[in-house]
């Protein structure tokens, strides 16, 4: 665990160092994008490096929004994103390059809502999340919730643990993150985050904070969940049974916060991917690549990648 994150750090640092020289040589692949997918991409990168030592692979995972500019400026071969390109990004891209990027759904994951183990709540409704995180509360239309007492009084606590009384400390990701936008669209109905929502640069920081603060609540990619925090089951507004998001069940398509994760490729019309790009894509679609995907805690994507491979790489 420690070893992997250390290695990831080294990779990120190395990418920063060599970013200026990257994407020039034919045998260098550079991947820029989502922090959510960092484990997956790093694991793919490691295995691919072992299989094809002749191809250098550089990975930079700061956030989904880092991918479109990098692809537009042609400093990256692949962009990995936890959301599709937005209209503005598509416009910027097509204005500069004259065509549209090509995206594949290579994986799926879900957002897990986590709380401290001292927190007596075991589940939370999407409506209550809206009341905690949103300023306009467009989903629920009900009053804002600022303390755990308000939620506890309404019968959230069933486990008999002592109630916690402090003010809710909502944690989120910075606006660079695809998870930020996903949460905003799907939990806040497109409304704005309350200005009290803490923005942290990375899921690990959210987990560390939730671990330490009994009043905290936050969302993380389900592959990041650790046993030091508690995953809250999500209740959808129209269903009585809450969806169990803890453990393996989170990997099933049950969670209302499941989303597609994309791999973007920029090919001008008529252009085919280079040999090294094909090699990486083929690796991702291979059994080994898909096994790594499951091991890293993600779910399979759709068939678009193998379809695209058949068309463009033969």
């Amino acid at each position: 665990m420690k070893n992997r994150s250390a290695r990831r750090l080294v990779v990120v640092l190395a990418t920063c160092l060599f970013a200026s020289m990257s994407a020039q040589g034919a045998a260098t692949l550079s991947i820029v994008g989502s922090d959510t997918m960092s484990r997956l991409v790093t694991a793919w990168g490691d295995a691919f490096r072992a299989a094809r030592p002749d191809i250098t692979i550089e990975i930079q995972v700061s956030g989904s929004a880092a991918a479109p500019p990098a692809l537009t400026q042609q400093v990256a071969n692949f962009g990995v994103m936890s959301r599709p390109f937005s209209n503005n990004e598509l416009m910027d891209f097509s204005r500069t390059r004259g065509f549209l990027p090509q995206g594949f759904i290579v994986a799926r994951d879900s957002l897990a809502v986590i709380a401290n183990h001292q927190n007596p709540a075991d589940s939370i409704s999407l409506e209550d999340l809206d009341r905690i995180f949103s300023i306009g509360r467009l989903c629920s239309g009900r009053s804002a919730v600022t303390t755990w007492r308000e939620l506890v009084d309404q019968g959230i606590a069933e486990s008999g643990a002592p109630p916690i009384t402090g003010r809710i400390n909502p944690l989120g990701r910075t606006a660079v993150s695809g998870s930020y936008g996903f949460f905003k669209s799907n939990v806040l109905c497109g409304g704005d985050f309350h200005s009290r929502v803490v923005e942290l640069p990375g899921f690990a920081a959210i987990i560390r904070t939730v671990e330490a603060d009994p009043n905290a609540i936050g969302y993380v990619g389900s592959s990041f969940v650790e046993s030091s925090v508690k995953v809250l089951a999500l209740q959808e507004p129209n269903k009585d049974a809450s969806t169990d998001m803890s453990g393996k069940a989170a990997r099933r398509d049950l969670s209302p916060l499941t989303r597609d994760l994309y791999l973007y490729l920029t090919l001008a019309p008529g252009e085919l991917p280079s040999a090294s790009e094909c090699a990486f894509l083929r690796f991702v679609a291979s059994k080994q690549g898909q096994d790594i995907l499951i091991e890293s805690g993600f779910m399979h994507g759709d068939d678009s990648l193998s379809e695209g491979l058949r068309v463009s790489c033969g």
Partner: protein
Amino acid sequence: MANRRLIVDVVAAAAIKVASVSVLLVILGMFAQIAITALPLFESPSISIGTLSTTRTGPAADLRVSQDSVANDVGSLPGFVDDHRLGVSNIHPAVAPEPTKGSWLDVRDTIIEQLHLKAGSDGLAPSVITRYFIPAGIQAMSSISLSRHFVVLDRAGVIHVYRLGRSQARATFKEPVEVSGINRVGWLDENTFALYSHEQQPLVRSVKALTNTLSLADLFSFRQYEGYPLPTLTWQPRVVDGAESKYSLVPLLWGTMSAALFSLMLALPVALGAAIYVGYYMPPVFREAIKPMIEMIAAFPGVVIAGIAMLWLAPRLQYALAEFIGIVLTVPIIVALSGLFLNRYFQTKPGRHFSKRLPMVVLLVLAIAIYSGAKLGEGVEGLFFEGSVVLWLEHYYGLSVSYFNGVLVGIALGIAVFPTIFSLAEEAIFATPKGAATGSLALGASQWQSFIDGVLPIAAPGIVAAIMLGLSRAIGETMILLLLSGNTPIQSSSPLEGMRSVAATLAIELPEAAVDSTHYRVLFFSALALFVLTFFINTCAQLLRRRWRRRYGVAA
């Protein structure tokens, strides 16, 4: 020989001149670059006659296809709901199949009202947030573009372009067009629209500087946004399509300044006290050992301090706020009292020299002071605050303590700026001519009197410079704010709340902003605003320094 020395002299002088001029040029160049990037933000839009052909070739044709296909996913493109209502934004297909959820325009004959749903105690209710008046009456009107603009053609033939949320037209095409027959206005791309009629060719108009421009009022004054209960100063750039961008710089500047202020409140007394002691009282033997040790702290990168504070200090501060306050209040008192006592004690024993045992004594006193301060805080908390200051404040005063708060930022940032202030202030005090102190000592003044009246006036300009440098460091510091402030753009003067600083915002958002987008320019402008702010503070400090120098007759 003399000749060669002369040549060296001339060459050295020239090199120094070139170096200093180039440094100046680099600074000016950077400043100009930032200004050039930021200032197109404030261009005012103007409408001119456009042509259809240029806007429909090349990438734009592709673009329109992509917009339509993506729009189906996002569900944020507007459409007419009925005869006179136009759905606008915040429409989420999964949650609200009816496009009126969120915000919409109610179009009447001479007035357009923008309504949004506001959360109240009994659910969402519509309320008007902006009114657009068209006195001549509406002849035709466009839908809302992706940059949230719409075009209105009035019956007098004047074209107005409005942005949602602003009742003044952003641009007006004064040259009236012949309105008869024109029944439809449509966007061709972000900056171009056409007026359609049955009889003739569409009239195409393009708007220069329509997108990616703002007014100063957008950045600095209260604005009513969709879904917000009241007009607010809000920083929330658009990340989801169709959402409204909120670019108020006030919370960010506020965050930067309050973080700097909290850090100085903690660092200043400690740094100046240490500087006075080391530079004036301490025997030079100790000074030579202690000064480099303190300056070592400056070698800690901000991220190290921030990391330690985040993982170690933050959780403890939540539970030990009372202990912390106890220490802050008790330590100075105990240290002062023990100083008094020890001084008396050593005066009665002439054989023992006070200063030789100093480090041990100081450490002991500090340890006792910190321990008793913590115990005192804990005791007071148990007796008067029902066991927890945090809960007590919350319960009786509604004051809440955020996990990431100003105290935490103040401590970490204070540690970062402390060595800067200490080092320079100490240097200023130590470098005062020895005669200033010894002269007044010889006339019978006490050490403290000679310091206040002899040394301090001479050292004051240097101390001010030290404080200014510390302030600059606090304002520019990024990592500590990024990790510890919580990045919550709230405007609160409470040190128990978080904040979001300009520097941290730049670090978070600049990588995501599309080059030359509004967001990108606003970020550059925030850097510029920060620069102006520090420039102002530094100028004030310089004026103060100059006045003091003149008053005490010290050569500048």
